[in-house]
């Protein structure tokens, strides 16, 4: 057996259960397997284990809800290059780049072996972010446009280098790492589980609930103290509120960038209403403080349930009016339609996830493929899929998801009875020498947290994957051939996280 097989609701697994195979065997298997749409790699990383470097690969089977885990090892300073999987399946590029950056492991015929985020603990300290090796093309008719790291608006930093032929973008390369704070290391530097919980809420502030849920799930699988049914439903409501708020914000941003002020201000007001709903529930507009392991400090009361239901119903009605307006405005459609097209095949090859992938017809959605919380039980989730893969498709997926989220919240809360809730658990011992994998679908897409404990049950390795890790490449591909002035709407249509990528 190459893989240990589990699913998203199972407990943590002892490390000795994970098969340790030859890299060649794993390579051969993945070479074939990853050509099928149902498989994709959720995480692939290395970590020092005793005298060796052990690599873990987590493969997801969307058709059967299985999580398949495999591993292989090599000696430190072993002077062999592993044949690159990226060369066959570009989707693996961020993982192989990270492994090379941190451990100097070489991948043979890796096509794009550039630093991923210039982590503080990288091997090659001479490689710094200000001498990022940008791709260049020679030619008299071409020019380069550099944007960043500091951008024009109030957003996070990242460096974009366009190669343009006149007004048209031939190539865009995105250099990230400016936001690197050493998040994964901070998780292992402390035993204070509240501190770790807050770290997870800070991975990407616009996905505080999503990453919070992923951390809480990872801990619950290690402590064995499962969230009760009511808590699972509350978390589902919080997640869908976050999805609504961010999709509405991005609808507004897409209106802003084509100069459509009515859509912009209507969405600003609706987003305010959504995040103020979250604030009235938990005291923070981004839901920080809401998600805690195995319990909650902010249980829903009868009054809060009514408040959320009323607000969500109003937001849904008003947002739907904005949606109808956008769909019937020719001047907006002229900008959004057939702009920034990422075809399905390409999206799949680069391993796109989440709503951006769904807008290109790739049906990746952890809520339906690897159910957790109330998904798959109380909610029979059906993903919203569009085929066009352009800015309009990404906008329409967002629009429909806002309405769907509102329906889900109403469905859960309309027959919700507040019950005795548990307080958060920061003290339960964690299962020793085990690996815990938590998958969830944030508003951007698939989030994967992996925790590995040592002999005392302390977190020894914590790995985080934000959907942005995959999708930044999709943005770079989307703008190829487009006018450079269409970059902003393409960027907003993805709205990717810099800090989630840089960690």
């Amino acid at each position: 057996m190459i893989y240990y097989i589990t699913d998203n609701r199972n407990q943590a697994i002892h490390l000795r259960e994970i098969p340790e195979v030859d890299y060649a065997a794993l390579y051969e298997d993945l070479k074939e397997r990853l050509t099928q749409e149902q498989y994709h790699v959720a995480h692939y990383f290395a970590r020092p284990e005793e005298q060796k470097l052990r690599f873990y690969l987590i493969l997801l089977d969307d058709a059967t809800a299985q999580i398949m885990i495999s591993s292989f090892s090599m000696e430190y300073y072993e002077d062999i290059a592993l044949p690159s999987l990226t060369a066959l399946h570009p989707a693996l590029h961020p993982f192989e780049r990270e492994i090379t950056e941190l451990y100097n492991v070489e991948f043979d015929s890796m096509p794009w072996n550039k630093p991923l985020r210039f982590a503080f603990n990288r091997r090659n300290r001479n490689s710094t972010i200000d001498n990022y090796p940008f791709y260049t093309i020679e030619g008299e008719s071409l020019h380069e446009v550099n944007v960043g790291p500091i951008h024009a608006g109030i957003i996070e930093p990242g460096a974009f280098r366009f190669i343009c032929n006149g007004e048209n973008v031939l190539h865009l390369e995105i250099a990230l790492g400016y936001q690197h704070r050493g998040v994964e290391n901070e998780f292992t530097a402390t035993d204070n589980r509240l501190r770790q919980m807050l770290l997870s809420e800070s991975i990407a502030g616009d996905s505080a609930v999503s990453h919070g849920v992923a951390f809480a799930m990872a801990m619950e699988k290690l402590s064995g103290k499962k969230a009760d049914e009511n808590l699972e439903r509350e978390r589902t409501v919080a997640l869908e509120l976050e999805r609504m708020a961010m999709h509405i914000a991005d609808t507004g941003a897409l209106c802003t960038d084509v100069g459509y002020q009515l859509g912009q201000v209507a969405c600003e007001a609706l987003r305010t209403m959504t995040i103020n709903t979250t604030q009235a529930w938990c005291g923070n507009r981004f839901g920080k403080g809401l998600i805690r392991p195995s319990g909650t400090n902010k249980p829903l009361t009868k009054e809060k349930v009514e408040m959320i239901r009323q607000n969500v119903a109003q937001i849904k009605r008003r947002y739907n009016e904005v949606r109808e307006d956008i769909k019937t405005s020719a001047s907006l459609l002229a900008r959004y339609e057939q702009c920034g097209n990422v075809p399905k095949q390409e999206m799949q090859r680069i391993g796109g996830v989440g709503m951006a992938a769904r807008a290109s017809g790739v049906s990746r959605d952890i809520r339906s493929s690897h159910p957790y919380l109330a998904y798959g039980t109380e909610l029979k989730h059906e993903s919203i899929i569009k085929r066009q893969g352009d800015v309009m498709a990404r906008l329409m997926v967002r629009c429909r998801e806002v309405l769907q989220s509102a329906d889900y919240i109403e469905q859960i809360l309309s027959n919700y009875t507040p019950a005795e809730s548990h307080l958060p658990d920061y003290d339960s011992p964690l299962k020793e020498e085990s690996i815990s994998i938590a998958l969830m679908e944030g508003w951007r897409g698939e989030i994967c947290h992996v925790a590995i404990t040592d002999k005392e049950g302390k977190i020894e390795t914590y790995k985080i994957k934000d959907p942005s890790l995959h999708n930044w490449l999709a943005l770079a591909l989307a703008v190829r051939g487009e006018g450079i002035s269409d970059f902003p709407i393409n960027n907003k249509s993805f709205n990717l996280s810099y800090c989630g990528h840089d960690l």
Partner: protein
Amino acid sequence: MILPKIKVLKSHGWQYIPDLNNVTLTEEFRGRVELSETSDMSDVEAAAKICPTQAITTVPFSLDMGRCLFCGECALRAPRNIRFTNDYKIGSTSREALIVTPQTKSVDFHQQNVRKEIPKLFGRALKLRQVSAAGDASVEMELNATGNVNFDFGRYGVEFVASPRHADGVVITGPISKSMAEPLDICFKAIPDPKIVIVCGSEAISGGLYAQSKAVDRSFLEKYHVDLWLPGTPTHPMTFIDGVMNLIGLKKR
């Protein structure tokens, strides 16, 4: 088509907050902390022990809102001693004023620290350049919100601009990653004098969860004078608006 637009407009109605000086946030909001001493301080010790950023000192009893992440866990452990109020007026020109003691009934803005030229030059228009230096995007979104249809801080001439050359100051968010230390410095130097520095969010003020991380470089804050400290995780738009209005002389706390 025009009909859907009329519908959107009708539902949208009026959204702006008419008086930015008269805003009350929900009771749930965690703003300024109130401390009370009791003869038995064991609850506070328990709270200090779990505090993720060591913001609480037991002897003498104080809480540093510049380190606090406003998670509220301490108030649950020591309800007799620590209480979060919905008071968002927590910005100050003095870093020390963010340290709350049992005597603190409101955060002192320390108006005397404001340089004389600031209200004179910027009282009617203040253009700011924001630099996110490993901020987690929540503070950044709240800063964006200060200019939105609800808060509309632009009514007082306070706006964010794209170029540092057009700016009167910089607003820093995030713990300042090593990779952003130099770009931040370059950006600040490009702003013409006189200029102000606003540090926004507990992560920027103290480093927050990343204070000890090897990936941050906070030397900027040692090098330059900070005009305004605005705590919060993230800083609420009203905290920003209140702080800046005090700074440029539009109100006195």
